[in-house]
């Protein structure tokens, strides 16, 4: 892959990650789900657990269907204070050498709860595998590995 091709691919991945984050911030759950392959694995896991090899994730979905169940919980069953998020995604690095495209990026997600100041909800890194489908990239794996094990009260929306 030429230097130009690599650069272009990185920008395409950045675009994809930005639109993924924007879908969550907009509460556009169809668009969010469309970012995943049917057998995608999604986790929000603390760096503490991840680094020490503990498998427990704060959110664990083993398929797009399970992600749909998570979205269903967010929309229909869970009770929480009204809020919205804002994703800032940067530092995208890609590694196309394997049979899938590997991408790593930093994220910072801010949360604004009604009548309260904006706070940092979570800071961490995305560790993703992507494949190209007709519609564009989709995740086959997305691990959101968050730096501080402490969650400020509750975690409602995906990261």
């Amino acid at each position, binding site marked *: 892959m030429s230097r130009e091709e690599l650069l272009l691919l990185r920008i395409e991945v950045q675009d994809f990650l930005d639109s993924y984050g924007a879908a969550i911030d907009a509460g556009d759950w169809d668009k969010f789900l469309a970012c995943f392959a049917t057998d995608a694995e999604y986790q929000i896991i603390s760096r503490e657990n991840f680094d020490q090899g503990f498998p427990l994730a704060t959110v*664990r979905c*083993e398929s797009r269907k399970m992600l749909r169940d998570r979205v269903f919980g967010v929309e229909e069953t*869970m009770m*929480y*204070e009204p809020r919205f998020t804002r994703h800032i995604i940067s530092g995208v690095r890609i590694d196309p050498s394997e049979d899938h495209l590997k991408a790593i990026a930093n994220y910072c997600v801010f949360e604004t709860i009604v009548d309260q100041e904006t706070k940092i909800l979570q800071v961490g890194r995305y560790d993703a595998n992507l494949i190209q489908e007709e519609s564009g990239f989709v995740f086959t794996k997305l691990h959101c590995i968050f730096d501080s094990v402490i969650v400020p009260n509750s975690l409602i929306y995906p990261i």
Partner: protein
Amino acid sequence: MPYVNLLEDRETPLQKPTATDHWPEEGISRVPYWIYSDPANYKREQEKVFGGPHWNYVALSCELPNPGDFKRSYVGDKPVVIVKDENGKFYVFENRCAHRGVQFCRERLGNTKRFVCPYHQWSYDLSGDLIGVPFRRGVKGQGGMPENFDRKAHGLRQLSVAERNGVLFASFADKPSTIEAYLGERMLGYFNRVFDGRELQVLGYQRQDIPANWKLMFENIKDPYHASLLHVFLVTFGLFRADQPSAVHMDDYGRHACLISSKGDQKATTATKDMENLKTDLILNDDRLLDPKREFPGTATVVMQTLWPNLIVQQQSNTLAMRHIVPQGPNKFRLDWTFFGYKNDDEEMVRRRLRQANLMGAAGFVSADDSEVMKFSQEGVVPYQRDEGIMEMGGLGTSEEEHMVTESAIRGFYGYYRKVMGLF
């Protein structure tokens, strides 16, 4: 808005700014709101509840498999360290240097041969005894500690330690009762149900900072009334619902309790008509999320045990967790979750536990409802110190019940709380 001249309104004398000693006449069917935020009451709780003759959960012994292993933990809001020494004996001491109070242990989990305070390098062995004081004899004949300085009198402050089937407890009391006597026969039975002597295995941790008073967490897990109503996920999938066989059991003092229930079908019955949130037509897209497998004797599929003063043992289907309550001032507590299974779990069971963990923790389909509602409770009561909540569901007493339409265990909790705190 009628104009009122406050300065001239001297008819009623000004009330004390804080009410720290009054409990409503009705007794335990009421809970006064000042106990959720009063700073003096909080201090007293640290002394009487967490510092009193009670066993506080601190760790699972499988977290410290080797000699020299240690873990940071808390008893109330006091930081402590749990250590396993060369002979496999567990020690719990304050995470506070005997010299100038430095919190010396900064790693969550680790292994060491001794503890050294970084400030002046005082060092302690694995049992907390002071073994080294730099420049004790002075330098070039100058300075040094007094001749009569007794190292033995300046070790780390020790707590009493008890272990039962892989669970470690600590107490600031010198000679607390045995852990078995402390739990009492009835609660020990439920404890042994999960901790049956099999070796445990940690699956991972979660921690949440919840902006609410610590007692609201205990109330929540002693309150089966809310579970059928608040938790749409639970009722929808029949995991915990008012029309299922269930019970509230307690120890003789009302300080420990269990909410017990058995999974039912996903259907509407006459009893479900009050549950506005019940949705019977829901199915999971991926049913592996809820694929419970019976693993404990008896018919109960969920037993939530609250052990005074700081522990919730969670067994909901196959998701097992210790929820350690760490108060952080009257208006905030940390909930420290340790999810676990058994060492001999097969791969399928581990996966099942990890999937079902989606129900619990900071993002839990069920428990996020609770962390949200506890914040609402705190914000609701703080401005109204002189008002009180009402708890008359299922009567006024503290008897055990074979149903879940009751606040009996919360009344039991406050009955014991008042005795410990001397609040009458």
